[in-house]
């Protein structure tokens, strides 16, 4: 007989001896027929994760719904916020006024009468479309961020909610300090404009975006 067979035989004998059948304890019948007592099962780990994910989804959904339900900020507030916008947040990042005009037209249908050339002090940063309250109505607003010298400026343009303003010239609605900035709003040719300027001094410098060759309006 081979050594392996001897080993297997010995192993089998050991298993037969040490795993032999035993008698059931006397109280097994009472245990079987007694009240069924099972250890409390812990909820599986995946259920905990599922609950956590579901909770996060509910919270995120609620936050999104809340955001949707909130009316947008006033166009003046949006304009002031635009002065601090990081350039990376702008979907269009260019210094080309013609490209800005085309992009805004394509994205919002708003035609911004930007001259193709502007004063050398002006440097356009980029543009985006944002929601805002314009004269009490929600609107999609084109936001153009630019810089004049060392100071940031933002021009926001929306279609005039009333649709009645046909003034060929600036019809100034307000021109006030707003949250440490200067903000002016006007209507012209069926569109509403809001300009925010971060410098404390001469406001009309910000008008150089559109008025480098023509006299700036009295705002």
């Amino acid at each position, binding site marked *: 007989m081979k050594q392996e067979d001897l080993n297997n035989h010995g192993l089998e004998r050991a298993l037969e001896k040490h795993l032999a*059948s*035993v008698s059931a*304890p006397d109280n097994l019948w009472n245990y079987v027929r007694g009240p069924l007592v099972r250890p409390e099962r812990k909820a599986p780990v995946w259920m905990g994760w599922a609950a956590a994910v579901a909770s996060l989804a509910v919270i995120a959904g609620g936050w999104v719904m809340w955001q949707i339900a909130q009316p947008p900020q006033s166009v003046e507030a949006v304009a002031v916020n635009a002065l601090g916008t990081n350039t990376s947040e702008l979907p269009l990042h260019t210094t080309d006024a013609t490209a800005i005009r085309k992009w805004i037209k394509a994205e919002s249908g708003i035609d911004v009468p930007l001259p193709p050339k502007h004063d050398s002090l002006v440097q356009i940063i980029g543009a985006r479309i944002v929601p805002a309250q314009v004269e009490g109505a929600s609107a999609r607003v084109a936001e153009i961020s630019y810089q004049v010298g060392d100071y940031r400026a933002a021009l926001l343009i929306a279609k005039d909610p009333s649709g009645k303003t046909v003034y060929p010239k600036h019809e100034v609605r307000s021109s006030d300090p707003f949250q440490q900035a200067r903000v002016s709003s006007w209507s012209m040719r069926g569109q509403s404009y809001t300009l925010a300027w971060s410098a404390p001094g001469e406001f009309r410098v910000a008008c150089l975006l559109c008025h480098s060759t023509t006299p700036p309006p009295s705002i």
Partner: protein
Amino acid sequence: MVADTDQDVIEGCQRGEEAAFRELFESHKDKVYSIALRFSGDPVAAMDIAQDTFLKLMDRIGQFRGDSSFDSWLYRLVVNSCMDHRRRQRRVFPVIEEFFDSFRSPDPTALDHLMRDEMQQQVQEVVAKLAPEHRIVIVLRYTEGLSYEEIADALNCSRGTVASRLNRAHKILERRLSSLAQGTRKTK
């Protein structure tokens, strides 16, 4: 195919007669408890498994049609209860231990020590550490003395699968028990 258990007793259980169930219990309690104990290695767990098995038996006795032997049907219930219990006590260590054991070499003569009574607990502990699919074939084979065909029937798998699992379990046990026996001799 109910010659191994009185047909009248089974029919009495199917009618819900308590006395018939008690008789059936008395006839099979040792078998059920032994498998449960050898599988779990724990008397308390064995009580739970046995309880679960007989509760299942009471619940499903009406479905027993005698197509197979009553013992085969009962073995399937016990195996299911053992596996259910294992799922509640799931451990990954048996698999890891089996992996590392595969690198140990067996000692040809050490198995002689296994016949000693003091080794009984160690044998049972080593068996209890086997992966469930290996453990159950060992228990059915050596506690109940079932044939490969009977084990295959109880586990609802092929005879080849039973042979393969038994072979694998033998090798694992051989390695583990050899190293245990070696350790015992060195300490003496």
